[in-house]
C-alpha cells in the first residue's frame, strides 16, 4: 500500500503524519513510524518537501544503493549539515570517489583488530568512573558514566592534555548542537563552537606533523591520496584533513554516549534482563546490539536521489531529499518479532543501527567495544539498579534520539 503523492493537499488542512521537526513527533516517534510502515512506506512530506522510507527492506536497499542515493547534501535533516558542508572532509556527506579515498586513510585505525587493542584502556576509563560513584546509591548513569566514557576515550585518542582544554572540548561538543526546539536553524553559539573546535583539531594536526605518533591524527596528517598529500602545508580550520578529524569526532562522542544511556535506561526498566546479565555476562554483547536496534541513536539519515527511483510502486523523482528512517526499520515487525519490546534475549539478527553500505558507521567497532566494556564493568562491580527519575532527552539534531540524564538507584 502507498500514499498517493499526486493528490493535492489543502494547505489549511495539512497536518503531516511525519514531521520530525515538531516536539509532538519527538515525544513519540515510534507510533508515527509504525503508521508510516503500515500506511505510507514511501511517504512524501509536502511541508518540508522530502520523502521518507520506513520499512526495513526499503531502508536497507537504499543504504546499499549509493549510486541512486547520494550524500552530498548531507545526512542531517535540519541545517546542521549544510553548515558543516561548507567545509571539505566531512566523510558522511561525501560521495565517491572521494569518500572511499578519504575513508581509506583512517579505515585501518577503526578495524576491529585495531580497536580491540584499546580494550584495556577503555576498561580503565570505566573503572575510574565507577570508582567515583562506587559507594553511592543514586547515580545519573547517563551523565556520570555513559557520557564521560567516550569523552575520555577521545581525549586519549587525540592525546589531549589534562585541564582546561578538556573542559573547552566538552563545551564545544554541546555547543555545536545548540538549537531551538521546533526550528531547523542552528544558533550563533553553535557556529562559533564549531569553528573553535575545528581550529583546535587543526592545531592538533599541525602538532602531529611535527611530532608523529601512532594514532589516527598522525595517519590523517601523513596520508597521501594518489600521491598527493591529504593535508596541505598550512593546516587550518577549513582544511579537508581537519574536516575528516572533525567528522570522526562528531561520529564518536554523542552517538556512543547515547547508545550506552539507552542501554542502561532500558536495563533499569527490566530487572529480569539485568539479572540474566549477572547470571551470564556472555549475554552482554547481545544486550548492546539490542539497545542499538531498539532505539537507534541516529534515527534517520538523509540522502538525495541522483535519478528517479521507484520504491514500493511510488516514483521518487531525481534530486529529492529522502529520509531513511533507521529507527523505524529496526522496529519493523516483519523482521523483528515483538519489535517494540526491548529484549536482550531475542534471536540475534542484523539491524541497521549503524547503517550499512558505503557509509556504514566507520566507528562501529569502537562504539561496540565501549558499550560492551562499560556494561561488563558495571555488572562486575555494581549490583542491580532501577530507574529513580525521568530520563531526559539531549538537545541535538532532530536526526538523533539521545538521552543525557538517566537517574538510577542501585540496590
Amino acid at each position, binding site marked *: 500500500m502507498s500514499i498517493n503523492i499526486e493528490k493535492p493537499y489543502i494547505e489549511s488542512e495539512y497536518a503531516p503524519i511525519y514531521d520530525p521537526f515538531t516536539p509532538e513527533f519527538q515525544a513519540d516517534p515510534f507510533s508515527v513510524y509504525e503508521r508510516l510502515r503500515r500506511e505510507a512506506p514511501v511517504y512524501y512530506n509536502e511541508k518540508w518537501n522530502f520523502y521518507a522510507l520506513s520499512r526495513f527492506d526499503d531502508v536497507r536497499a537504499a543504504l546499499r544503493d549509493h549510486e541512486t542515493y547520494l550524500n552530498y547534501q548531507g545526512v542531517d535533516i535540519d541545517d546542521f549539515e549544510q553548515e558543516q558542508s561548507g567545509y571539505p572532509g566531512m566523510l558522511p556527506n561525501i560521495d*565517491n570517489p572521494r569518500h572511499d579515498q578519504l575513508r581509506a586513510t583512517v579505515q585501518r585505525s577503526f578495524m576491529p583488530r585495531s580497536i580491540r587493542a584499546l580494550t584495556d584502556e577503555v576498561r580503565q576509563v570505566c573503572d575510574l568512573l565507577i570508582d567515583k560513584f562506587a559507594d553511592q546509591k543514586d547515580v545519573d548513569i547517563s551523565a556520570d558514566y555513559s557520557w564521560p566514557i567516550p569523552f575520555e576515550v577521545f581525549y586519549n585518542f587525540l592525546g589531549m592534555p589534562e585541564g582546561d582544554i578538556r573542559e573547552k572540548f566538552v563545551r564545544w561538543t554541546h555547543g555545536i548542537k545548540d538549537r531551538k526546539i521546533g526550528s531547523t536553524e542552528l544558533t550563533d553559539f553553535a557556529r562559533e563552537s564549531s569553528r573553535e573546535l575545528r581550529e583546535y583539531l587543526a592545531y592538533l594536526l599541525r602538532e602531529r606533523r611535527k611530532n608523529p605518533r601512532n594514532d589516527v591524527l598522525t595517519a590523517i596528517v601523513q596520508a597521501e591520496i594518489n600521491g598527493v598529500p591529504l593535508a596541505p602545508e598550512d593546516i587550518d580550520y577549513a582544511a579537508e584533513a581537519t574536516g575528516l578529524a572533525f567528522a570522526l569526532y562528531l561520529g564518536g562522542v554523542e552517538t556512543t554516549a547515547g547508545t550506552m544511556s539507552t542501554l542502561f535506561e532500558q536495563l533499569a526498566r527490566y530487572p529480569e534482563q539485568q539479572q540474566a546479565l549477572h547470571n551470564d555476562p556472555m549475554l552482554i554483547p547481545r544486550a548492546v546490539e539490542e539497545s542499538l536496534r531498539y532505539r537507534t541513536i541516529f534515527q534517520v539519515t538523509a540522502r538525495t536521489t541522483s535519478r528517479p527511483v521507484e520504491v514500493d510502486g511510488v516514483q521518487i523523482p531525481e534530486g529529492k531529499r529522502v529520509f531513511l528512517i533507521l529507527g523505524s526499520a529496526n522496529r519493523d515487525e516483519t523482521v523483528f518479532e515483538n519489535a517494540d519490546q526491548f529484549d536482550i534475549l531475542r534471536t540475534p539478527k542484523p539491524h541497521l543501527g549503524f547503517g550499512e553500505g*558505503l557509509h556504514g558507521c566507520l566507528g562501529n567497532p569502537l562504539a561496540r567495544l565501549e558499550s560492551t566494556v562499560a556494561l561488563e564493568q558495571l555488572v562486575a562491580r555494581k549490583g542491580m539498579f532501577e530507574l529513580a527519575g525521568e530520563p531526559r532527552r539531549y538537545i541535538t539534531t532532530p536526526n538523533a534520539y539521545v538521552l543525557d540524564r538517566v537517574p538510577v538507584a542501585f540496590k
Partner: protein
Amino acid sequence: MSALATLTHSSTVTFEEEEREIKTTVVARLDAATDVVLLTLAAADGSELPAWRPGAHIDVLLSNGITRQYSLCSDPDDRSSYTIGVLNAPASRGGSRYVHESLHVGTSLTIRGPRNHFELVDAQRYVFIAGGIGITPIAAMLREVENAGKPWMLYYGGRTVSSMALREELESLGDRVSIWPEDTAGFMDLATILGSPDEDTVVYTCGPEPLLAAIEKICDARWPEGSLHYERFAAKAIEGATDTAFEVELAKSGRRITVPADKSVLETLGENGVHILSSCGEGTCGTCETPVLEGEVDHRDSVLTKDEQSRNDCMMVCVSRSKCPLLVLDV
C-alpha cells in the same frame, strides 16, 4: 597447438609500479548507444598525454580499490585526450555502473597507463571481428590500417542496432564494414568470415567469451599459427564472473554449509541463522573479519594488507571467497 599470438592482459601487475598515475578530467561524455557511454579524458593540467598505439588500454582508478581497464578508441595522434567506451554491463560488480552513474563532464579521474597487450602487427591484410563493446580497440586499429592503405574487413556484431556504439561512424566507411545485430541478422557467420585462411592475413578480435571461443576454434583448426590476435574483455577477467561454490565448516558446531557461486559467505551464513557483524558489505571496513582455521582464502577485500592476507588466518566474509573446496571458519 593454439594459434594464439596475443593473450589477455591479465598479468598487468608487473607494470603497475613503473607507471605513473595521471590526473585527468572528463571533458566529454557521449551516450553512444544503449548502455554505452564514450568518455573523453584530458590531463587535468592540460599537458599532453602519453603516446599510445591502437590496442592499448588504460587503468581507470574509480575509487579506492576499484580499478577497471578500458581500451582507448580515439586517434593516437591526438595527444590532448583519450576516449574510452564503457558498457554498463548487467553483471557489472559496480565498476562500469559507477562510470555510467557517477562520471560526468568535469569529474576528476585518475588513470594509469596506457599499456598495450594487443598490439597491431604489420600484415598485408586484416580481418577485424568485434563483439559489442569490443569494438573500442578495433576502432582505433581500423583508423591506423586505413591510413596505411592496407586492405581490411570489419565484422561487428551486437545485440541490437541501438546497442552498437560507433556503428554509424563505421558504416560510413563503406561495404568493408559488415554490421550484425543479433535481433535482426542473427549471429555472425564465422565459418564464412573465416572461410579463407591466408598466410598474409591476420585476424583481430575483441568481444565476449563465447565469440572468442568460437573464433579460436576455427582459427586453431584452419588458420596458420599466429594469425589470430585477440583480447578478452578485461572487465570480465577482473570482475571474476567465474565465482564457484564452495563449502565452509563452522568449527564451533561442526556444521558444513555450501556457499553458492552467486552468494557471499556473509549472506549464506545469515540465511543459515549465523549472523556475523558487518557494515560496508564491500570489503572496505573490516567489520566482518572472521577467523579462518583451514583452507586458502580468495581475498577480495581492500582493507587487509598483502601480508595480512597471505597469513590466511582471517577473511572478510562480505566479499572474500575460497580458493579451495572447503574453508574452516572459527565460528
